[in-house]
């Protein structure tokens, strides 16, 4: 199976901040988006079981390769990074166009993407990519397995799960239930040195005409504030649970919560 995993380098959760230009500061050290690690693990397991290879696809500034190297160290085969100064400040719509254009330059059976991104992403890009490329789209996957000529996915539903099937090539969005991602072994880390990270500009994927990027953002951040501070909390150390419970009830009444 030739699998492409959409991988987003994001700030370490908890370290996100806005730069002076009002955009997400991408100069802080980056990690693999948490949800992307689950689908990467699923991709690695699929090729271990059924053969094939895993290509990483990212859209990011080209100095953020540490997360891509980590993903290569985990076992991905190669990476394609679309990087262009025009992309700074891109919205989800631009990202969708760019990833779709990059995918048009690749051959694949399956595209995997994570549920949403921890840096404030809307979680809509993968669906948009599927629509642009006319790919069957299967989201909320807790299990992915190839079947004859196609793919079967267990999709989480409010009451349990639905079993979906579609032909390949397809795009699947996965969840944490696909399984814990492996640690990159040190051997993997040292082997990743020789794996390819191909860097492409917008022009090289056919989007050099200024149709996408920060200048064409569909949304604009107008204001960003720290949230209203919480008042300092109360701490109660009370060994008698009945007294502790009464304290909680009193507090809830005071706050009009009950």
């Amino acid at each position, binding site marked *: 199976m030739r699998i492409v995993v959409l991988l987003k380098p994001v700030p370490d*959760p*908890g370290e*996100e901040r806005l730069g002076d230009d009002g955009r997400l500061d991408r100069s802080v050290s980056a990690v693999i988006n948490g949800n992307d690690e*689950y689908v990467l693990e699923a991709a690695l397991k699929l090729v271990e079981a059924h053969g094939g290879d895993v290509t990483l696809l990212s859209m990011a500034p080209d100095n953020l390769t540490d997360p891509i190297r980590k993903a290569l160290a985990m076992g991905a085969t190669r990476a394609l990074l679309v990087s262009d100064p025009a992309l700074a400040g891109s919205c989800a719509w631009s990202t*969708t166009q760019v990833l779709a254009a990059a995918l048009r330059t690749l051959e694949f059976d399956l595209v995997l993407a994570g549920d*949403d991104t*921890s*840096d404030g992403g*809307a*979680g*809509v890009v*993968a*669906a*948009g*990519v*599927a*629509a*642009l490329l006319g790919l*069957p*789209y299967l*989201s*909320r996957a807790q299990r992915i397995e190839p079947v004859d000529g196609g793919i079967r996915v*267990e999709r*989480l539903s*409010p*009451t*349990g799960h*639905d*079993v*979906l*099937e*579609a032909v390949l090539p*397809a795009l699947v969005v996965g969840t*944490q239930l696909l399984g814990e991602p492996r640690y990159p072994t040190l051997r993997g880390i040292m082997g990743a040195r020789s794996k390819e990270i191909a860097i492409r500009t917008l022009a090289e994927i056919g989007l050099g005409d200024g149709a996408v990027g920060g200048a064409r953002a*569909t*949304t*604009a*951040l107008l*204001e*960003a*504030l*720290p*949230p209203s501070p*919480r008042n300092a*909390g*109360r701490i*109660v*150390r*009370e060994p008698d*649970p*009945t007294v*502790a*419970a009464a*304290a909680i*009830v009193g*507090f*809830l009444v005071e*706050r009009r*919560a*009950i």
Partner: protein
Amino acid sequence: MAGGIWVVGEVDGAGALTKLSREAATAGRALGEASGREILGVVVADEPDAAAASLADFLPNVLAVRAAEAAGRAAAAVVASRVAALAAAADASPAYFLLGATPDGRDTAGMLSARLGIGVLANATSLAWESATGVVPDGPRVEVQPWGGRIQTRSGFTADAGIILLRPNMVAAAPLAARGRVADGPSGSVSDVPVVRVVERVVVESPGPSVEEARVIVSGGRGVGGPGGFVALTELAGLLGGAVGATRAAVDAGWAPYAIQIGQTGKTVKPALYLGFGVSGAIQHKVGMQTSDTIVAVNSDPDAPIAEFADLFVIGDQAAVVAALTAALRARAG
């Protein structure tokens, strides 16, 4: 004429309109009034009538689109395809689309964005119509709290067009005094959607109240110690009219289903009241719930990180306190 506002209703597994769609319709009506734009409800399903009728309780005009190709198929792509086609064919094409921020809603929004070439603002906790400022025209302004609530943002669209995904409980659903009209959408089937067949629907558990919609959440973490502890939490949640939530640790241990996991790789919630029992409040969980209005936590570890941001932190044995609290609440009710 300036483009209207379409509220795309979501239909649940039983063919009914979701509660969040009613809230979206109410919010859409308010936006319509503030902006002077026409508002329309749209329901796309293989059997849309019941949901369309419900949506008409909230909107003056609703279009029921019978999409035969939706039967036995994953819904979002069909909805997006039909709505996009309707929008393109409409005499006055819509400028804005409102949907609930559910998994299907996000999927539909992403596909609509790609098909129509317009932007998306997701996870709105507040929505208003405002006049133009430097970079944005007259239009909707959306408040979102990304990064686990560490920042509060207000955003708009750079063109007079966009898709907005609304979080639960942003507004209370308010029906119209007089029910609106339902018209049938164009018939026929559309075949530009790649087929994703639903081969089987597996029902594993009866759904408890959704954590995302609940006003009260009773949540358990590693300190709960086992599935039995969650039985006690379920009872307590029932007394408070709330939902049960869980941390990643409890879900990984198999004590609670992933559907109620709150946190970085689970759900984000903003209830009026969050009670955490045996929850440490480490960042994986914290980012999913720290914007709750009131946070009460019980933990035997005095240094649990949750102590730093809880409004009331009780150092004690969570099982004993849950039992005592349940008894105390029963006594108040009785």
